[in-house]
């Protein structure tokens, strides 16, 4: 029921990318329909962060293409991507520590018309009352979890069509993790599509409609989250073929 005849919101085909000479993605195919929540899983070094960065324009595309909302996004810059509705919340809860919470959000709305900015900031803060009360405090005064919420709020200022979240739960307590993932549910109701890169398997499967597993730069598995034997299949995808050591012994 998730497949539709119309073109997907985001489609990535045969994508190759990396850092200078180091090639990380070796031909990735991926698509996301409007309003879908997709989890992107995989072991470390597989290329999940690289994939998000390539899609949003932070890294150049070496081969393949990226299409968003019917437009060719292969040579996009992050600024244009954000304007078009593709918002990337990078990993590491990187807020501007010297600026206030409100200023951090205002900057997220830099390209918006001035009259709308304040309103959008309030809208974003409404998702996270915990930081709304701290709106005049410096970014550096917030705890790690609050900073993470702030970065997600920054993403929401632009009312994205597709929100890409890179490990939003990293270093967070379980309560805060649930808070952040809860927001995803609210976004889904509003029709925002989400790509969620996550380490926490169960939480990711609970929040998402579909899951992709990225291993060593290629998609090893794609399935709806409703399937029951997913954890086993993922384990096999992560650890690859049977190791020789087991056979010999």
């Amino acid at each position: 029921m998730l497949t539709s005849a119309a073109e997907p919101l985001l489609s990535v085909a045969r994508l190759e990318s990396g850092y200078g000479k180091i090639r990380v993605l070796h031909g990735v195919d991926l698509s996301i329909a409007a309003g879908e929540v997709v989890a992107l899983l995989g072991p470390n070094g597989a290329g999940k962060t690289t994939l998000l960065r390539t899609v949003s324009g932070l890294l150049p595309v070496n081969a393949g293409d990226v299409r968003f909302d019917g437009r060719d996004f292969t040579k996009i810059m992050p600024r244009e991507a954000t304007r078009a509705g593709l918002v990337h919340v990078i990993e590491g809860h990187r807020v501007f520590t010297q600026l206030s919470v409100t200023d951090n959000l205002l900057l997220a709305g830099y390209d918006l018309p001035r009259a709308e900015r304040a309103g959008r900031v309030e809208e974003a803060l409404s998702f996270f009352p915990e930081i709304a009360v701290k709106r005049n405090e410096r970014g550096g005064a917030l705890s790690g979890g609050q900073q993470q919420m702030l970065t997600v709020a920054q993403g929401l200022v632009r009312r994205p069509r597709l929100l890409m979240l890179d490990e939003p739960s990293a270093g967070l307590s379980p309560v805060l993790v649930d808070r952040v993932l809860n927001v995803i549910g609210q976004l889904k109701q509003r029709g925002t599509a989400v790509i969620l890169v996550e380490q926490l398997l169960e939480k990711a499967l609970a929040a998402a409609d579909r899951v992709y597993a990225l291993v060593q730069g290629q998609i090893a598995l794609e399935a709806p989250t409703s399937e029951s034997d997913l954890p086993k299949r993922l384990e096999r995808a992560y650890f690859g073929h049977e190791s020789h050591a087991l056979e010999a012994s």
Partner: protein
Amino acid sequence: MLSSIIASGLAAGAVYALVGVTYNTMFSTSRVMSFTAGQLAMLGGVFGSMFTLKLGFPIWAGFLLTLALCAILGVITEFIAVRPVLKSLEQHLYVLSTLAVALMIQQVAAIKWGTEPQPFPHLVNLGSGVWDEKFWLPVAACAITILALEYLYRRTLVGRAFLAIAEDNFAARALGLPERNLRIASYALAGIIGGIAGFSGGQLLLAFFANGALLNFYGFVPVALGGLGNNRGAIIGGLALGLFQQAANFLVGGIFSSVAVFTLFIVVLLAAPQGVFGGATARRV
């Protein structure tokens, strides 16, 4: 005697401090220490004298034209010496490219303007003795510039965007901030600040092409002392330097005062390579 040391020390120090702020403004958005800071200040004096004395424009017109030209030069520096180098992985290249541009500016000034110092006009004609305009003007200009920068950084979105890019360039880019345009704007701003430094210090230092190299060094000392990117440290460092230099001038004479300044500079740097107020270094591995 003491009062004239203080007056000239604060005045010279204010010019040095503004050149330090020029360095910082360029550094904060590009992580590049540019050799052109002192040259921009030199041009503030040279253009100021050229427009007002040689070409006879009214003071305010000469001032604005000077700032405009300095801003343009700042932008040109970004285009030819900074942006191409930022894309490369080689750390040292920006030192060379900005050095090259600075030398070219200096040579053109020497050839076209002349190698003799030229006078700089009185602007407002207020005060005499230790309260002479050539002493209080740089200090006033410095104070006004600092207040204006504070307003920019604290009250305008553009200013806060500058701060964001200075703190975390990658996160700013990912957020969709126009990082390239902001960098160009900050180089134009640096040009303006340098121009103000030179114009307000024109009566003190005269319109002299060799001021460029002089201010490159004396404007760098406040940055080294105060820590890279730290404007408050630059102001304190600049004023302290100015006072120290004038006191040394008085006590041991002109030639040895520069030896004294330099020795102080080296000793402080070797003891605290990040500056007295500076931050920690990045991890290497």
